[in-house]
């Protein structure tokens, strides 16, 4: 098809640029030296602080809540929320996306919208250093100074129980059988694994410690089984649980496993993995049992995000490695009250879930406003976050879910937090289950509204 005269002219326009740009080969005088220091030690491209500045690192349920509610509590506080991601994807409800029940749009949200509605600054940047003496955060976009720093970076995976330091094995496990409890590529991997499954064992593991989203692996097992059943796939979900029993909503999940998925789920409690061969796709348990698998979502233990170590505020907890070394009532770093750590890096053993982080975030935000106003924080300024959490147990023909809600109370006798005012709805087979399914979606939508609108 010949070019028309008009078309030829358009092309010429671009060709002119091409011509001009082609002169480069001539130049040869680049400094070999890196200019990184110069670029990165300048301030990041955000407006100068117009008052006391709170910098929040990590725009998950915790960070987003805190940014919004600090501005609500005192609009004069300057708030900068940072995240390395260009888009938000929630871990909550992601099992429903992985099994095709909900579209990706449902869990994917817009940081800029949150910033527009919340009247704070969002900066897409990754932190690589924090100097708590000069109160400076170093990012790939430049530096940001803070008066108060909030670290809400969430979990990372701790593969050490399985890999004993073998980095290659860890990389292969992360790549081939991702846990899919940090939303993003992992979620899409899980989705394509389920969609392309041709039969055999599909292994789901449940880690020990206080892992993110206690019911998550059980919910996932139900939904994968539901998918196999619906699509007549000759597959079986093997649930390898490091714990002695289902860790939460046990009655509900057990009855779903037994009644709906007898032929599709094998639940294996107290199963500690000794070794994994990702090439032969074989797991050997502590007792020598060999388990072959056609595919898997291998969820290792969790730890605090590496950012805590970068900031020098990490400490192993009895449950997990490298969690935040904070006062459990004020969320302030021990020895540095200007730094708060929230969300899934907190060491208090609360449920690592979005609803907990969201309700906690409102409390922490109110306390940060008080702190910036000169008030000391203490046990007296503490109130309990709330854990409200729905888990799907089936999607076909109806979405059915069970739920739990609980507060936390501090027990002075044993110096521990324990659940308070807790309740469960573990019946899924009547109208409660269908209401639960509707509740699950509205619960998620409510959270998105609170974080982004």
């Amino acid at each position: 098809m010949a070019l028309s005269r008009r078309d030829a002219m358009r092309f010429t326009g671009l060709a002119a640029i091409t011509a001009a740009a082609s002169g480069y080969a001539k130049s040869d005088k680049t400094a070999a030296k890196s200019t990184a220091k110069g670029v990165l030690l300048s301030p990041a491209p955000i407006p100068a602080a117009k008052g006391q500045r709170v910098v929040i690192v990590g725009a998950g349920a915790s960070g987003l809540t805190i940014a919004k509610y600090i501005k609500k509590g005192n609009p004069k506080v300057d708030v900068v929320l940072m995240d390395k991601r260009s888009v938000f994807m929630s871990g909550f409800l992601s099992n429903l996306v992985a099994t095709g029940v909900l579209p990706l749009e449902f869990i994917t949200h817009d940081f800029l919208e949150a910033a527009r509605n919340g009247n704070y600054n969002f900066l897409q940047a990754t932190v690589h250093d924090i100097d708590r003496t000069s109160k400076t955060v170093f990012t790939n976009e430049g530096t940001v100074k803070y008066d108060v720093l909030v670290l809400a970076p969430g979990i990372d995976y701790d593969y050490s129980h399985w890999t004993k330091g073998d980095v290659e094995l860890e990389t292969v496990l992360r790549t081939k059988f991702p846990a899919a409890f940090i939303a993003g590529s992992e979620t899409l991997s899980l989705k394509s694994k389920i969609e392309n499954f041709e039969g055999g064992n599909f292994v789901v593991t449940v880690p020990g410690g206080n892992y993110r989203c206690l019911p998550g692996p059980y919910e996932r097992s139900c939904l994968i089984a539901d998918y196999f059943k619906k699509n007549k796939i000759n597959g079986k979900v093997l649930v390898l649980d490091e714990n002695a029993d289902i860790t939460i909503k046990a009655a509900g999940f057990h009855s779903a496993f037994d009644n709906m998925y007898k032929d599709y789920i094998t639940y294996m409690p107290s199963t500690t993995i000794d070794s994994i061969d990702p090439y032969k796709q074989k797991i050997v348990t502590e007792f020598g049992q060999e388990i072959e698998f056609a595919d898997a979502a291998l969820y290792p233990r969790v730890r605090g995000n590496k950012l805590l170590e970068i900031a020098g505020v990490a400490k192993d907890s009895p449950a997990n490695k490298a969690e935040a070394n904070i006062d459990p009532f004020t969320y302030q770093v021990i020895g540095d009250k200007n730094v708060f750590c929230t969300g899934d890096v907190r060491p208090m053993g609360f449920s690592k879930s979005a609803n907990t982080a969201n309700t906690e975030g409102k409390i922490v935000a109110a306390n940060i406003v008080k702190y910036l106003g000169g008030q000391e924080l203490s046990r007296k300024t503490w109130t309990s976050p709330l854990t409200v959490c729905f888990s799907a147990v089936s999607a076909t023909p109806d979405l059915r879910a069970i739920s739990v809600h609980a507060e936390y109370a501090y027990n002075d006798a044993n110096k521990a937090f324990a659940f308070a005012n807790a309740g469960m709805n573990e019946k899924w087979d009547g109208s409660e289950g269908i209401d639960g399914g509707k509740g699950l979606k509205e619960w998620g939508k409510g959270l998105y509204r609170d974080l982004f609108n």
Partner: protein
Amino acid sequence: MERRNFLRIMAAGATVIAVNPSLIRGNLYAADGRLYTAYEKAQLVDAAGNPIKASALDSEMTYIFNYPYASTPCMIINLPEPTQQEVQLKSESGEEYVWKSGVGKNRTIVAYSAICPHQLTHPTPNDNFIQYVPKTKPTMAYDNSGIIVCSSHLSAYDAKAGAKNLRGAATQPLAAVVLDVAADDTIWAVGILGSDKFQDYFKSFKPEFKEFYGGIAQAKQLVSISAKTVKMTEYSKDIIQY
């Protein structure tokens, strides 16, 4: 589909009855006017457009009407007992205000915004998670019933005390609808007391407004003259309550 049409008609055709507003006295606003906004009075009418009489409200039934905007749902409930009086309340930003009392012969009739201040859950033609739980029905949200519960995240509100927070994630009461009951037993909405979430609501549900009200502008229209009031089971297809 029917519910959607119903709402469209409600929003568009809310101009049926004319009454001299000066005949009706407000009696339920904060003493000092703080956190109180007067809107155009609207008479509560049934689906056929006939005035609803206060004495005709079923006991412990949640009725829904949209006020003060075409898209902002409120609930009116005839409680089994008289309400408390002069209840001291506090908004999430710390402002204090007073809810005076229920209305009607026995001070049993209350009305509140049905937009949960926690995360804006509210009745739609599809479903309703927020309603009064009758005394005989259990709820997961609180130790006893006879309260208002949002089953989305289990916030519990004291129906007889200005929707004061009892438990759950919500950090302020439901906004109250200030009602008048006229001498002829007709019911009138005259304003909103407390911290409403209307602006957040308008920001959050634009696709829903298009679906149910025909557009965003339509959803933001102020209700005028009358407000259609129906049982929650007629308003929403599914009622979800734990």
